[in-house]
């Protein structure tokens, strides 16, 4: 209690103050201010220096490294408190955001220069408006912006010292998104003419920021659960089930059914620098399927062991579960190593395909079906195709174009990123189970986390509402159909309705804390489905995105 002479109006005031959190001034926003301002300076430099400037892809990789560094230092600070580690983490995060936004801005200029070059080479003197080239044309662009949204939102909330721990939870996810972007590939695409609208930067810009805030909300939810003394073994069950689902669904469900993993193949794009085309043929990578299946079995063992521990308080089961978890982690690393080395070692995709398909002719039929689906046949014509015709169609395709087929890590970016995410999930669960009580002490209070979770969920809700409405207005202006229940529209609507339900349960049932945390997690998973699942799994207008 302080006793102070205050001469104002002859009043002397002593006070005892109740609970408060960190006071903040504008200086606490310095990291995010410098990151944004610095990015625009980079843009200026790029415009000045020209094509010799560092590429957007390289800047993106530096951003990825900075995010990982920030997360590492913040995790170190969590377990072994250190002011230096905290500061390095904060400024690394700011650097990450700086490079992330710089990458996006530099890409804008590069896209502009690319098409202007094409226009001039084709004798076209026209100079389209600069906003035509804003990097919101494909999933790569959106991924960069999504990661920026997450980093930016993290820095904004981290202006309060006690929330700087957020970087340990959000930035690994942002790094995973940038990794996905890396595998998608940053080749420029020819913009579909209908996308050349001023609504594109508005709609997609809002999307990336909303997704970023939803990611932060998810991270806070996880922090809340940990602080609320949820057993790490419960988290392990969820992360293991997620990994098992990933393994089960990739490679067209062949990991658990055939113990094989087949990767897609590419055909080169005749346009220099153009994105390669996906071919309908998938090639088995040796050992990957079997190792992933083994990892899946280990993870199922983790689930069973921890369920026994949770329901019967069996310490032996708990111990077994942790051993299995560590084993599963190692096996997943081995699977990914086989994946990468298998892709890099393959030099003659055509020969390998023919050899594998000779032993398993049904693969020809599957490839033939994929070829037929792209041929705009009627349903009757398609249904009338026999397996022999499909097989012959596939063989004809191989004869004509098989020499050009090649393998690349980028052929299945979502699947590979799914494997990396599953690995990251296993890693973090293992990390959280180490000195858990120490970790819990270092996290902000439950009340703070709950308040921040509500705040971020509200922002995500408002952002998704803007996303839906700007999308509808754009659609109404461009093709007269504001709402057509397209897959992406519907997925975004579902995510928005989930956040709406979350907010209303707080009003009606006073749900806060754990229940809210679960809602926030489900909401974010739906956002991820909107961002990624729709584009790769479902047909519709937004499939190009």
């Amino acid at each position: 209690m302080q006793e102070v002479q205050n001469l104002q109006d002859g009043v002397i005031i002593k006070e005892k103050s109740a609970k408060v959190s960190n006071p903040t001034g504008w200086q606490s926003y310095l990291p995010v201010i410098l990151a944004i301002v610095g990015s625009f300076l980079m843009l200026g430099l790029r415009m000045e220096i020209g094509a010799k400037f560092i590429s957007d892809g390289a800047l993106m990789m530096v951003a990825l490294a900075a995010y990982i560094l920030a997360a590492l230092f913040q995790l170190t600070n969590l377990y072994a408190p250190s002011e230096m580690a905290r500061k390095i983490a904060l400024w690394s995060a700011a650097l990450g955001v700086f490079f992330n936004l710089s990458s996006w801005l530099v890409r804008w200029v590069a896209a502009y220069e690319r098409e202007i070059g094409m226009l001039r080479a084709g004798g076209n003197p026209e100079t389209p408006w600069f906003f035509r080239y804003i990097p919101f044309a494909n999933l790569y662009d959106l991924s960069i912006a999504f990661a920026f949204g997450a980093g930016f939102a993290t820095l904004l909330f981290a202006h309060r010292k006690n929330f700087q721990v957020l970087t340990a939870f959000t930035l690994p996810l942002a790094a995973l998104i940038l990794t996905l972007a890396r595998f998608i590939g940053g080749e420029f695409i020819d913009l579909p003419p209908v996308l050349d609208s001023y609504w594109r930067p508005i709609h997609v810009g809002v999307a990336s920021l909303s997704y970023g805030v939803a990611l932060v909300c998810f991270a806070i939810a996880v922090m809340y659960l940990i602080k609320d003394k949820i057993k790490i073994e419960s988290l392990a069950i969820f992360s293991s089930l997620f990994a098992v689902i990933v393994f089960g669904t990739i490679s067209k469900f062949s990991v658990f059914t055939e113990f094989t993993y087949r990767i897609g193949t590419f055909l080169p794009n005749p346009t220099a620098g153009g994105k390669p085309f996906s071919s309908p043929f998938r090639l088995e990578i040796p050992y990957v399927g079997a190792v992933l299946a083994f990892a899946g079995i280990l993870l199922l063992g983790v689930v069973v062991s921890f369920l026994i521990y949770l329901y019967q308080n069996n310490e032996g089961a708990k111990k077994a579960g942790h051993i299995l978890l560590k084993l599963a982690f190692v096996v997943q690393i081995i699977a990914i190593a086989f994946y990468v080395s298998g892709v890099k070692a393959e030099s003659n995709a055509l020969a390998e395909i023919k050899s594998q398909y000779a032993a398993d002719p049904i693969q020809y039929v599957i490839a033939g079906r994929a070829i037929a689906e792209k041929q705009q046949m009627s349903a009757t014509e398609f249904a009338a195709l026999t397996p022999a015709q499909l097989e012959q169609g596939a063989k004809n395709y191989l004869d004509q174009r098989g020499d050009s087929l090649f393998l690349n890590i980028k052929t299945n970016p979502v699947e590979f990123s799914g494997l990396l995410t599953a690995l990251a999930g296993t890693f973090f669960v293992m990390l959280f189970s180490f000195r858990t009580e120490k970790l819990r002490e270092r996290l902000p209070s439950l009340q703070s986390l709950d308040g921040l979770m509500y705040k971020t969920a509200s922002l995500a809700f408002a952002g998704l509402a803007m996303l839906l409405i700007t999308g509808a207005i754009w659609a109404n202006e461009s093709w007269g159909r504001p709402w057509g229940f397209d897959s992406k529209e519907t997925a975004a609507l579902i995510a928005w309705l989930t956040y709406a339900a979350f907010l209303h349960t707080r009003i009606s049932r006073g749900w806060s804390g754990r229940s809210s945390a679960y809602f926030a997690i489900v909401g974010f998973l739906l956002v991820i489905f909107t961002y990624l699942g729709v584009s790769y799994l479902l047909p519709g207008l937004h499939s190009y995105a």
Partner: protein
Amino acid sequence: MSAAEETIRPKEISETKSKPILDRAVEFLSSVRFGVVLLCVLVALSMIGMLIIQQNVQGFDSYYASLTPAEKTVFGALGFFDIYHSWYYNFLLLVLSLNIVLASIDRFPGAWSFVSKPKLDASRKWLLGQKQSAVVEVTETKNEEVIAESVAQAFKKNGFSTKISEKRGNLFVYGESGKWNRLGAYIVHVFLLILFLGHFIALQTGFDADVRLTPDSNPSQQEQAQAPKVTDQIQLIQFNLDKQERYNVQLPFTITCTEIEQKLIDRNGSIEINNTLDWRTQIKIDDPEYGSTVADVSLNKPFEYRGYRFFQASAITIGSASEMTLDVIPQTEGAQPLTVNIKRNGETNLPDGTKIKHEMFLPDFSMQGNQLTTRSADFNNPVAVLSVTPPNGQTERVFAFANKLPDNAPINAPKAGYRWRMASFEKSPIAHVLSIKYDPFDAAFIAWYIGGFGLIGALAFVFFVSHRRVWALIDGEKNEIVLGGNTNRNQFGFEDKFNKIVSALDPNFVPQTEE
């Protein structure tokens, strides 16, 4: 009987009357809990519609063909192939709208009381129970009014409007900001209902259609494009599982396509979508009621006329040309070659009075018997077919090829005294497709602009503004100021504000920080 017992009388058992069923039903319909359940059901149905391909989505026919008869029967009977237009989905939206209205009516009086009857005073215990509270001991004072005024000034400096009141011998200072935020949720729901209603009206009163148009006057070109130049009908598409049925809809006016243009990235490249910057269709509307109107329709720039909105949808990518440049080489010795430009459907004259009229353009010239045709849609062997009438001579058909042909080729023989060659041409597709949205009441505009933007504004108001209240109880007897405050949102921001108020009273105040 003792006096005590005399006073003991059996308590009458009162029967609790159950509420009328209508009251209970309204209570149920207006509960937020029920609304959350409706949201969850809506989510589930929307997911079904996402995972089961809908009949209006490209690829439905092959998906439908791949289903088993049982799946077709069950999904079809449940309406899963067009779930978003099913009766139960619309009913769900209707019930949700009703729930929103009733819940809002139910809760509005409580919210309004924050605005109309602010809580100007509070007990010490209540104040200390608030999330933000502080007790300031006053060791020397002039009078309570002066202290109250100091406190009110501190409140005002931090953006609160203040009221000083007296109750039970104590002075209270009340400060608040953003009181209208209490009504924010109702404003959100009003705009949401406008959006629902507007969209519903647009669906019920309007329709989607399309029309193919070509600027070519030549009937054979129109036949090739399967598109007329002039029409008063558009085609409405209705989906019936894997069948697309087209119906003609009569327009109250006539549309004539006067020109189409395609802006290419590489002018020497193809007219495919990946080489396209924009498409533009120029149309002329002849309306018996309102006269003629000329309009341009291009991508993202629709044209609206009498409730019909015309959108540039796509192009029929059979090659054509909107303008051609001809090299005309006179056969007279010593005469200079001429260069003339001619537009599609256009006419021009040579200096000697020879009339040149454009007949048609073929991208990949071929003849089947006497019939002129094109082998493909690509510009492999482009030719401009012209009608040439020399002065005092007969009209002849002339072929001006872009590719160099041998001089002795019969088709390349001089005609009307000149040898003809097409030096260059502006590539264009043969026809464009316009999509038309009929919305007679502008319901889509009301739904999405007014409802949509209103919703965004209301959400911003709800989440970026909060109702903050602070109280100060000036207790002269105990010589203390008891401060308390709460907010309905943004607790952290309010904490900072509260700390600033206390700091305004005491510059040396240092808030405790949460580590």
